C-alpha cells in the first residue's frame, strides 16, 4: 500500500470516528431534512400537481409532492454534510490537528481525499435513511434506483466538499465560512430542483437552474427514484461526475499550493 493511500485511509477513519462521536451532528444532519420533508410535503402537498420526473421531460404519471421532495431532501442532506465536512478543516486548524498533517510527508491529496470521501460516505448513509423512508410518500424503490441515487448524492457531496475546502483553506472563522457557504449554496440548492421542478420554472429561472452544477446530481437522484435507474441520462452522469471532479480538484489545488506542492 502506498504512503498516500495509507494516509488517506487513516484520515478517512479519523473523520468517520469523529462523526460517530458527535451524536448531535448525526441527529441534526438526518433530522433537519426529514423535518423539512414532512412539513413541506404535508403543508404544500395539496397545492401542487406534479408529473413524475423522467429526466427533464417527465412523464404523464402523477406523483405526490412528498415523493418529489425525496430527491431534494437527499440533496439537502448532502449539502449540509459537505458544509460540515469542509468546515471541519477550520476546526482542525483551530484545534491544532491540521498542523500535524501539514508537517507530515503525507500528500495533500490524501488530506483532501479523506475529507471529500468521508463526506460522500456520510452523506450517502444519511441520504440513504431518507431514501429508505421514501416509500412512505409513495416512491417505489428497487436496488438499482437506490444505488444510483446514492451515487448522485456521493458525487454532489464530493463536489461541494471540495469547493468548501478551497474556501475553508482561506477562511479563519467558522461563522464567516458558514455565512459564505450559505450565501452560495442555499441559492444553489433552491435552484437545483430540490423544491420545485425545472419544467415549471420561468425562462430566466430555468436558465439559472440549468447552469447550476447542483441541478444535475439532483436530477440524477430524482430520475433514479421516481422513474427508475434505467431512465437516467448520460448527461446527468457526465455533468454530475464533472462537478465532483472539478470541486474536489479545486480543493486539492488550493490546499496543495498552500503547502508548496
Amino acid at each position: 500500500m502506498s504512503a498516500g493511500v495509507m494516509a488517506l485511509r487513516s484520515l478517512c477513519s479519523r473523520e468517520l470516528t469523529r462523526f460517530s462521536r458527535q451524536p448531535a451532528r448525526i441527529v441534526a444532519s438526518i433530522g433537519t431534512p426529514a423535518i423539512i420533508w414532512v412539513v413541506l410535503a404535508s403543508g404544500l402537498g395539496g397545492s401542487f400537481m406534479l408529473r413524475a420526473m423522467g429526466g427533464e421531460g417527465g412523464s404523464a404519471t402523477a406523483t405526490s409532492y412528498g415523493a418529489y421532495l425525496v430527491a431534494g431532501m437527499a440533496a439537502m442532506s448532502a449539502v449540509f454534510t459537505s458544509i460540515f465536512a469542509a468546515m471541519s478543516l477550520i476546526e482542525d486548524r483551530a484545534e491544532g490537528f491540521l498542523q500535524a498533517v501539514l508537517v507530515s510527508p503525507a500528500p495533500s491529496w490524501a488530506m483532501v481525499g479523506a475529507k471529500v470521501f468521508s463526506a460522500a460516505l456520510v452523506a450517502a448513509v444519511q441520504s440513504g435513511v431518507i431514501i429508505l423512508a421514501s416509500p412512505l410518500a409513495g416512491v417505489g424503490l428497487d436496488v438499482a434506483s437506490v444505488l444510483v441515487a446514492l451515487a448522485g448524492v456521493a458525487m454532489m457531496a464530493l463536489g461541494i466538499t471540495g469547493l468548501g475546502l478551497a474556501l475553508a483553506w482561506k477562511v479563519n472563522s467558522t461563522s464567516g465560512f458558514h455565512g459564505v457557504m450559505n450565501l452560495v449554496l442555499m441559492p444553489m440548492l433552491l435552484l437545483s430542483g430540490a423544491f420545485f421542478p425545472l419544467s415549471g420554472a420561468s425562462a430566466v429561472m430555468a436558465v439559472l437552474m440549468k447552469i447550476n452544477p447542483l441541478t444535475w446530481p439532483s436530477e440524477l437522484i430524482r430520475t433514479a427514484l421516481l422513474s427508475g435507474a434505467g431512465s437516467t441520462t448520460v448527461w446527468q452522469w457526465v455533468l454530475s461526475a464533472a462537478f465532483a471532479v472539478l470541486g474536489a480538484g479545486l480543493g486539492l489545488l488550493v490546499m496543495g499550493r498552500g503547502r508548496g506542492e
Partner: protein
Amino acid sequence: MDHLGVSAMVTTMMMSNQAGATDGALAVVARGVKKTFAGTRARRGVAAVPARVALAGVDLTIPQGQWVALLGPNGSGKSTLLKILATVARPDEGDVSVLGRAVVKGGVLSAGELSVVRGELGVAFQSAALDPLLTVRENLRTAAALFAMSAAHAAEAISRVAESLGLTDRLDQRVSTLSGGLMRRADLARALLHGPRMLLLDEPTTGLDIRAREEFFTALMEARRRMAGEAVGGGGGLTIVLSTHQMEEAQLAQRVVLMHEGRVVADDSPDKLRRALGRTVIRCGERVEAGAPDPAEVLRGMGLMVTVQPLGEVLARAGDEREEDATRRVRAAADRLIELGVAVQVAPPTLGDVYMAMTGRSLAGEGELAGEGESAKKRGGRR
C-alpha cells in the same frame, strides 16, 4: 544595539560556532533568511497593522545531534524561523537546507524535497496537534499512518514512545480529557513516533505550570537519551531545535541562539554566554521619586557598564577586567546603592541578563507586558 560592550565577544563566539559546524554533518544551514509579514489597511473601527519584519537576514548552522534553543521574546522571529525549518512557511529571501536537503533556494520552496524532509522531522507547535475527540492511541495511529508506518510498526512504536514518556496508562483516554501537561507529552509522543532525525519544538510548554514543564522536559531528555542509545550508523543522534522565551528552558540546551527583532544577536553555549557578562551582575530598579538617587547614574559614576530597560529595570556589570577586580567593583557598587536605600540584587548573570545586555530589552518583552506581544504574534501567525 550593544549596551554592555559584549557584542565583539559574542560575535567571536558566533563565528566559532558557525566555523565549527562545518566540520560534521549539518542538520540546518540557513543563509540570509528574510521574512516580512504584510500589513493590513485600516477599516472602520479597526486600526491598520503595519508590515512587520519577522526575520531580517538570519544565518544559522546546526550540527546533527545538537540541542539548540532559539531564545527571544514574542515577535523576535524564532517561531517564524522554526516554521520555515519545518517547511510550513516560506521565507521571502534566503536559502535553507534541512538534514542535507535544500528546501528553500532564493526564497522558493523546493517542492521535490519537501516530502522527504518532512518524513525526517518531528514537529510540535505551541498548541498540541491532536484531535481532542480521539483517544491518544487513535491520534498516534493516525500520525503513524501519515508517516507511512505499517500497523505492526506503529503499534510497536506507540508502546515504546508511550512508555518512554509515561503515557502507557493514558493511551485509551480521549485527548479532550487530558490535563495540559499530559496533552503536551502526548503531542511530543506524536512528534517522536516515527523516529525523526530532527525535532522542532515551538514553545511546547506554553500555558503549562512549572511542574508540568519539568515533567515535559524530563520526558524529552529521557526520550533523547533513549534515541541516542538506539541511534545506529553514526547518525549523530536526535537534533533538537527548541524555540522559547523561558531562559530556564533554554538553559537545558547545548547551545543558545538569542534572537531579537528578527536577527541572531548571540549564539553560544549557555555557560559561555553568561560568562561574557562576568561572574556577578547587579539588578535593581530605576529611580522612582524626584530627588532620590538615580541607581543607573550611581553605577555609571562608579565605572560600571549599565543597561536600563524601557520599563525601568537596571542591569550593571563591571566589564571585561580580571574576574576578581570585576567582582570587587560590583560588590562595592552594590554596597553603595544599599547605603542610598536602593534595593539591589547581586547574582550570577542569567541568559535573561545576556539578552538585556545585548538588546537593552527584557526577555519577557516590554510589548507583551504592555499587552501588545500576543497580538503582534497573531498578526505574524499566517504566511
